């Protein structure tokens, strides 16, 4: 088995709108892949096509080398959560899971296993309509885990989670993938998954913008440097003479792009400019993401 997921020229057209445009990628086993893009980029549509819920206009996708519909017992291979709201509100969380576990031919004991796994035992016998969004997310995850699958596909799982919930999810996914299993997780916020994923697929307007490891993406950020100085404009000029682009941040600091703090320090020293703060910016990963996805592809 070469690839867990393979998408070949996947395309989906809704009327005049090209939601997914000739999208090809492969996902290898044992990786956590962040599937990123702004809202409306075509992430969910792509996931639906991967999972056989929507039919591609052209192209095709395979999971474990076959179309999803042809998996023998899909719940045992793939766990997927597309919406956090897919429950009958009058049913208890446990009953929801029991229905699905029967459909997959699994024993009821699995239901209790996954409830424990997502730490939802205490609410298991309450009706879903009383669940918080975080609890619903966990219940959805529990359903996906029923068949002890080798692949998890999650659409925006961190939506509506509080910071603690996000951290729980991050730890959970790390744990899940540490055993050689595979995760594909979509998000419109890079920061949400940056600490979790090994690699990223970034799409915009239905097209693949970037497919790279997180390291490469971080490298591409270069060292963006934040610097405060009473003589900002002179400093910007000095940097420019050395071929370094900079921009003013909203808290009256200068962001020097594609350089290192050492270099910015040396340049300002040479120019005789005072510096009050000099920091390598890690968070500008987000800026790369914005750069990649803000351009209008059409």
């Amino acid at each position, binding site marked *: 088995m070469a690839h867990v997921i393979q998408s070949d020229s996947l395309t989906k057209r809704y009327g005049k709108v090209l939601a997914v445009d000739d999208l090809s990628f492969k996902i290898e086993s044992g990786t956590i892949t962040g599937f990123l893009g702004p809202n409306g980029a075509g992430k969910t549509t792509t996931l*639906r096509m991967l*999972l*056989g*819920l*929507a*039919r591609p206009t052209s192209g095709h996708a395979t999971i474990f080398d076959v179309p*999803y*519909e*042809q*998996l023998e017992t*899909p*719940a045992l291979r*793939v766990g*997927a959560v*597309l*919406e956090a*709201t*897919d*429950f*009958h*509100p009058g049913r208890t969380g446990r009953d929801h899971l029991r229905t*699905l576990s029967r*459909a*997959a031919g699994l024993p009821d004991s699995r239901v209790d296993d996954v409830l424990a796994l997502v730490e939802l035992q205490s609410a298991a016998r309450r009706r879903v309509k009383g669940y918080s969004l975080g609890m619903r997310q966990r219940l959805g995850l529990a*359903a996906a885990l029923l068949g002890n699958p080798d692949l998890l596909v999650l659409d925006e799982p961190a939506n509506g989670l509080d910071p603690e919930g996000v951290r729980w999810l991050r730890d959970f996914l790390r744990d899940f993938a540490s055993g050689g299993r595979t995760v594909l997780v979509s998000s419109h916020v890079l920061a949400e998954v940056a600490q979790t994923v090994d690699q990223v697929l970034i799409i915009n307007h239905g097209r693949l913008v970037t497919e790279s490891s997180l390291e490469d993406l971080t490298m591409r950020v270069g060292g963006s440097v934040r610097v405060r100085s009473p003589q900002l404009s002179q400093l910007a000029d000095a940097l420019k003479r050395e071929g370094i682009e900079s921009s003013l941040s909203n808290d009256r600091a200068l962001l020097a792009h594609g350089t290192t703090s050492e270099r910015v320090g040396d340049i300002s020293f040479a120019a005789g400019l005072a510096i009050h703060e000099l920091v390598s910016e890690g968070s500008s990963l987000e800026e790369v993401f914005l750069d990649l996805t803000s351009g209008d592809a059409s």
Partner: protein
Amino acid sequence: MGLLIGLVALALLFIILTCTLSPANSILTEQDQVGLLSFGSIAGVFSALAGIMLVTSEYRFGTIRPTFLFNPSRSRLFTSKIIAGAIAGLVFGVIGEGLSFAVGMLTLKVRHIPIALSGGNVTVILVGAIVGTALWGIIGVGLGAILPNQVGAVISLLAWGFVVENLVFGLLPSVGRFLPVHAQNAMMGFTTAHYLSGAAGTLVLIVWTVALAGIGTTLLKGRDVN
């Protein structure tokens, strides 16, 4: 469950009202008594509603996504929905028709009204009402697959059963007799003017059932789930 309670309550209410309030001379003839004793076929409405719910509530609450993810073969899934609809319909039919038949017979006896029906009539009523109701369960599943919007499907069903069919039959009986509710009436032994024969009525209702289930399956298989 709510549907079942509704059915029992409605069937009991109507049959008791009809039985006690009808003047004796209006329930004397064979056709009058067919009408009285087949009243339980109202269960068809409930059975169709149950069938509709089997499909549309999945769309309404989004459980259609996990359902399809766990059962990607949509034909197999739809087949099991049809079987479930038929079983629900059968249960509704037995309960609804059983109740109204029992109450109707009891009333006739208590009021000393001679029974104008033969054993053959009785069998036709019972089989027609119960099998017909089971078929309505399947029709409901088909309708739900055609119109996954729950409110839309329910309104369509009720408008069809209570308004459209009667209108068409009133204006164009030669067409109206081929519509499902009137076909089932024929199936239960009504011999009203313009009605099909019992056998033809049965066949027509089966054709409706197969057609709607078939169209439903085709649409369901081709439709993307959002």
